[in-house]
Every structure is written in structure tokens, then in C-alpha cells.
């Protein structure tokens, strides 16, 4: 576990993720605390696409895949899944801290009512997006066997869901329903969209089992 933290959370990754969220909290304008979660949702998903893309691909980049290939399948799969989940957890932790940085914006008024509920909702909702897009990007890189193809394909989906057209997708299957309609914070429809994203992520993690053995040439 400790070693996977060191492998998955490199200094470069920590630097760019912290900078990204810090800048986001300072420049993304909001007018009330209710909008914080919505302001973060799609953006942290974008961060997750880049952050998690090389979870396994770094073994290829650093020429370790041939040695990795000789390890027992079960251990290999577990260690990669652990790295992926550690990264998701790390971004979620950053989200939970970054939330309060938004309060530095003077436009945000302090409304104590339901503050904790809003906070927990925002962190959980954004974490679901991070899990989904992080897992999808990691999977796409493994499927395409190319880092940029994987990131590109995931980005296309992100862009579609985050566009005006994306808002027309029913909330119950739209991972960004929460972010698209912040006023719905009181509603529960977006929760289904997030649940679907979590279920799909779990399935994708399982699906990755077969992609963790990279064969060249004949396979």
C-alpha cells in the first residue's frame, strides 16, 4: 500500500493536481455555496482523466511491463486496482479541502443552514465523477494501448456530457446532472446518474482484468 502511494502519487502529479484545484477555486466564479459542488464537478472529472490515465501505462512507459507480465495475475491486478483507487481517493481528499477554498471568493455568503449537508453532497457527487472518469480514462488507455488515444476518447465523452447537448440526457443516467443543475441540489434525481456512474466504474475495473496483460505482436 505504502509503495503504491509512492508510485501512484508522484511529485509531479501532486503539484499539478493541487495547482489545478487551487486555481479553479480562485477563478471559477460562484455566487453561493450551493454552486461550489456544481463548479467543481465537471472540472475535477477532467483532472481525473489526466491523473488516472497512466495508472497502468507507466509500466509500459518505463519498460517494466515485461517484468510485470511475469507476476501472478491476481497480484498484478490487485496492485493496479489499488493504485487506481488510491488516486481517486487522493483527488476526493483534495476536493474536500478545495471546497473551502471557494469561500475565499468574497461573493460567497456564509449561510450556515445546511452547510454541512451541501459540503458532504458536493464531495460525494464530485468523487463519483472522479471515480467514473478516472476509471474510464485508465480503461481507455488500456484498450487503445495508447495514452493519448485513451485520454482523447474519454475527453470526447466528458465534452459531450458537459455540453448543452449533454444537458438533454436524462438526469438518471447523466453523471453531470448534479453539476448541470445546481438548483436541483434539493432533488434526488441526479443521485441516480451518479449511482450509474459508480456501477459502471466497478464494472470497468472488473473489465480491466483482461487488459492488464499486454501482449505484443501476436495477441
Amino acid at each position, binding site marked *: 500500500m505504502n*509503495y503504491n502511494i*509512492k508510485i501512484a502519487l508522484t511529485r509531479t502529479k501532486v503539484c499539478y493536481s493541487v495547482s489545478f484545484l487551487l486555481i479553479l477555486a480562485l477563478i471559477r466564479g460562484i455566487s453561493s455555496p450551493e454552486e461550489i459542488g456544481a463548479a467543481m464537478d465537471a472540472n475535477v472529472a477532467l483532472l481525473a482523466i489526466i491523473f488516472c490515465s497512466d495508472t497502468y501505462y507507466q509500466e509500459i512507459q518505463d519498460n517494466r511491463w515485461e*517484468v510485470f*507480465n*511475469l507476476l*501472478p495475475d491476481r*497480484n498484478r491486478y490487485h*496492485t493496479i486496482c489499488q493504485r487506481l483507487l488510491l488516486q481517486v481517493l487522493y483527488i476526493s481528499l483534495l476536493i474536500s479541502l478545495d471546497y473551502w477554498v471557494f469561500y475565499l471568493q468574497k461573493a460567497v455568503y456564509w449561510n450556515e443552514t445546511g452547510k454541512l449537508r451541501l459540503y458532504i453532497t458536493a464531495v460525494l457527487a464530485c468523487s463519483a465523477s472522479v471515480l467514473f472518469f478516472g476509471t474510464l480514462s485508465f480503461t481507455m488507455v488500456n484498450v487503445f494501448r495508447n495514452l493519448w488515444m485513451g485520454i482523447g476518447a474519454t475527453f470526447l465523452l466528458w465534452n459531450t456530457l458537459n455540453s448543452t447537448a449533454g444537458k438533454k440526457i436524462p438526469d438518471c443516467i447523466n453523471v453531470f446532472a448534479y453539476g448541470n443543475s445546481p438548483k436541483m441540489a434539493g432533488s434526488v434525481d441526479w443521485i441516480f446518474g451518479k449511482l450509474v456512474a459508480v456501477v459502471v466504474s466497478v464494472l470497468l475495473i472488473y473489465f480491466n482484468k483482461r487488459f492488464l496483460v499486454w501482449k505484443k505482436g*501476436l495477441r
Partner: protein
Amino acid sequence: MSIEIKDLSVQFRNGTVAINHINMNISKGIYGLLGENGAGKTTLMRVLTTILRPTGGQVKLSGIELNEENYEKLQSRIGYLPQELGLYSNLSVRESLEYMGGLAGVSKEECKKRIDFYLERTGLTDHQKKKNRQLSGGMKRRVGLVQALLHNPEILIVDEPTTGLDPEERIRIRNLLVDFSKDRIVLFSTHILEDLAATCNNLGILKKGNLIYDGKREALLHQVKDSVWICKLRNEEEYNLIQNRYLISAKNYTEDGIETRIIADKKPHVPGINVNATLEDAYIYLMNRDPE
């Protein structure tokens, strides 16, 4: 403990034949695999390490047939050091070895013992706390070698482990390979002939996917016995004439002309003396011999 290869062939999707129906038998000790770039050495190693599925033929490792059903069983018997192994830059030497050992299924206690043993043997004990990114090329290869040995494999496959290293480090690596070959098969691929001359008794030479030699080093040297000459040539013009007629394995400008090492079955028509053949002479001879 053996590697039996029968009629093995590997053809890539683009039609390139990387291995062309080769047969080999490798037993305990170091077996040197020699060949020019693109000869098929790495492809053969990838087949043996279960990374690549062959298009034809049969391979048995310690009597177990190399096929998908047996991959997992065989993988635990193989240690592999690829040409360029990138180590986890954020981890220290010891941490990366503990990590790899754990993943290979070695128990914590046993892993610690083995790491201590191999760090001592490879002269890395003093560097075990260093981050991998701080290591020199030679040290990285030694760490790579230790990671390949942690699960105590019967077969150790090393792909050009001495390329790009300084002479001292090269000697150290090849001596380690000799030490580690006492109770296992070490398949040592290289194109540095000195390394093979110093370590292997048995070797195979690949050329464009074909195994053009498989046998004892002495038998290979015997093929060019009495066929190597050192001749003194007067000038470049004479050298050019000789070059067109004979195989030349070395050329050296001296004060009184050009000293040339010629491989020829009969005494060349220029003055020269017969000398003992080296592995390099034998290799040049074999690589340039007309296919039978």
C-alpha cells in the same frame, strides 16, 4: 532443469519472420545468445518469458509445455531482466525490491532475507536507501538482476545486460551471472563477444531468425582454427584489394603500414602470420559464410 525448443517459429502480423523454425536444447549453466540487431534474440526471449505467443513449434521449460494453460505455472519459474528496465523512480532500492518481491508472491520474511543476500552479493548494500533515480546505469542493472532473482527462478533470462556499461561494471555484471548460473539456467543475450567469451561454454548464434550455430564455444572456435592471419599491408590501396577478397575482422594503422586481421581458409597472398582465433573471428566467419 532444461529449455527444449522444437521447430519454433514466430511470424508477425506484417509478415516478418522473426524466428524461423529453430531447434535448441539448453541445460544448466550460462547459455550465450548472440546475433546482430534484429536477429530475433529479443523475440526468442519474449517467447520464453510468455510475453509473445509463437506461431509454430513447441517449447518446454523444465518439462512443462509453454502454452497459455501453463503460463502462470511457468511464470513463477522465470526471472527476466529486459534490455532497459525502468525502476520505480520514487522508491528506494530496497523498497522497489520489497515491492517486486511481494508482488511475485514471496513472503515478507523470506523476501527480506533474499534481498539482504542479493544486495550483499551485488555490492548494493550501501546503496539500498538510495532512490532508484539516483543510481548509475550499472547499479540499475544490478537492481534489475536482483529483482529477477527474488522469487528464486529456475531460469534467468537476461537481455543485453552489459550494453552501455563501463568495463568495470560489465565485468561485475557478467561475474554475477556466472555466480547465479550455478544452480539454474541463465540465458544471456548480448552482442558483446567479450562477455560471452568470458562467461559461456555453450552458445547459439541467430541470424535473421535462423539459428546458424548451437553448440560449444570451443567447437565454434575450431571452425576458424588455422584460418586467422595477421598481415601487414603497405597502404590503403592494398587494403582495399584485400578487403574485396577476404573477410577482415580488424584493422589497425601502424607506423609502417596497416596491420590487418584476415580470416581466410588458405594463407592470403600478402605476407602474414597465422594466429589463434578469437570468438570475434569465429562470429565474423560464421555470419559471412554462404548459407549451405
